[in-house]
């Protein structure tokens, strides 16, 4: 079954680029262009992973993350931050909030793909162990 990944960024081009790369690797990609949109899409589409920008108007990435982590249904969806904010303080903040990864722009595609693969491998392992 194809894994479903949600890409959230207010920059349409970035979403486009990430989408092309992920689709090239055989993932199913859904998009959102702001925080509120993202929450709606998540409820509807139930993605397996979320790639989240931080600096977005109104509801930023941290807010989205906080919201997701506070609700039972969305609590365990892994999140990777993909952002231009490169300060260590922000990175820590993101990781403390429960994100699996923190990648700064401009990003290396391999880096992003590696991280996604690792996350899926790990979750599969966890499921196997449970079974």
């Amino acid at each position: 079954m194809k894994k479903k990944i949600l890409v959230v960024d207010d920059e349409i081009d970035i979403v486009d680029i990430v989408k092309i790369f992920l689709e090239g690797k055989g993932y199913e990609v859904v998009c959102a262009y702001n925080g509120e949109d993202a929450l709606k899409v998540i409820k509807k589409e139930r993605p397996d992973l979320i790639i989240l920008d931080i600096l977005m108007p109104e509801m930023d990435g941290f807010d989205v993350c906080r919201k997701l982590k506070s609700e039972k249904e969305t609590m365990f969806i892994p999140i990777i931050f993909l952002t231009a904010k490169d300060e260590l303080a922000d990175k820590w903040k993101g990781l403390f909030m429960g994100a699996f990864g923190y990648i700064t722009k401009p990003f290396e595609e391999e880096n992003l793909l590696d991280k996604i693969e690792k996350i899926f491998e790990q979750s599969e392992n966890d499921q196997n162990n449970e079974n």
Partner: protein
Amino acid sequence: MREKKIKYSFKKKLFWYIVPLILFVSLTFAGVFIQQQNKLLKENLVDRGMSLAVNLARMSELAIFSEEDSFIEPAIEGMWSEDDVVYIFLYKDKGKILSKYTRMRINEKLYADVKQKIYNTREPFWQYPFSSSKVWEFYAPVFSTAEESIEDSLLDVKVEKRGKSKGRIIGISRIGISLININEQQKKIIKLSIRITLTLLIIAFIVTYLLAKKITTPILELAERVEILGRGNFDEEIRIKSSDEIGLLAREFDSMRLKLRKLNKMKDDFVSLVSHELRTPLTSIKGYASIFLSGKLGQLDEKQTEKMEKIVKHSKRLSDLITGLLDLSKMRYGKTDHEGKYFSLGKHVQNIVDELDILAKQKNISLEVEIPSDLPDIYADEKLLTRVFINLIGNAIKFTSEGGKVTIRAVDEQDLTRIYCIDTGMGISAVDLDKIFNEFYRVKNKNGMEKEGTGLGLAIVKHIIEIHQGKIWVKSEVGNGTQFIFTLPNKKEVKYEKKDFSRR
């Protein structure tokens, strides 16, 4: 520590201004005092000598008349008991001696000019004796109140006019007074003056010291605060408990600090905004170029691939430049997050060298680590130090031609660890050497083409070393390789600026 920075401290200056002044003033006063006292002493001596001589003369009238010295003996004895009276002579007619007391060798004869003077003036007088300058002598005429029966011829001097009231001169008293007492008193006065001068000097010392301390203590404290401010910590309040001008200065500094803090916040916001605004389009450029390269939009031919790779390469460089600039600006304003800990330098360098070995092998360069195993652990931020080594070793590899050698050496020097990064590369010309740590300075190669890189690497390295309270410098000659040398203080916990997570 701060006081060492001052070549001529206020304390010293104040000292060199005040102490010579006090010395000059007190010496002048002492001189005047001694002179005045001397004058007074001599006047007293003259008064005393004169009155002794005159008294003796008054009392000796009868004795001279009767030529019987026993009449006057008690009076003379009384005078003689004073220890600075060294001789007493009483002369009768023709300068013959009636009575004589002496403690020193002296010409006993009455000099003719003395006689002449007494007869001319009929007044007592004093003079230095010819034989000694340590004794002053006093003469007084002895008058007779009796009738003019026995004539002046008793004394073999012709008198033209005789005084009207006092009567005839029948003899002369002569008293010598030694200056010993006066000298002793003079010595006492000089001693006293010296003591007063010294006391004044000591007081001047103490007052100068205390005054200087009182003035410099708040100034030094202020300097310390301002230095903290200069390092980019705008949160430390500058407050000096002082109601004087220094207090005012401190308050002015504090209002400056608040303005700076505001500006700094604006700058931080600006930098972060710019960095975001630059990075986002850069990410798109690089992303789309990568998509082309990946062949997802159709296979590219060789030329297209080459150009597309250039787009990726240059966006990478631009991105490195943005990162470097941000890092440098953060470091300069003390905003880097760093954490010191003790670790083994040898292992640390070996790890880095292992990673860079691939790069070196491509150029057939040997990487050698010469770090003694017993080198004490150093205290530093591991991540920052990694950057230093990657930068220095990376540069060394970049500028060393095939078959060369790059050596990392560390030497323990008690207070500090000295670390060398030595290559056998092409060296750096003297012109470049001065500017090598400057931002954006890139050494040009022989063709005048700039080498790759952002020109920020060494500037960042320098900052990192300085954050660790170390120093870095470079030795090089064209064709003879390059040595980067830096120091890190040993066994001393470097005080970093506190972490700043409070922003935004």
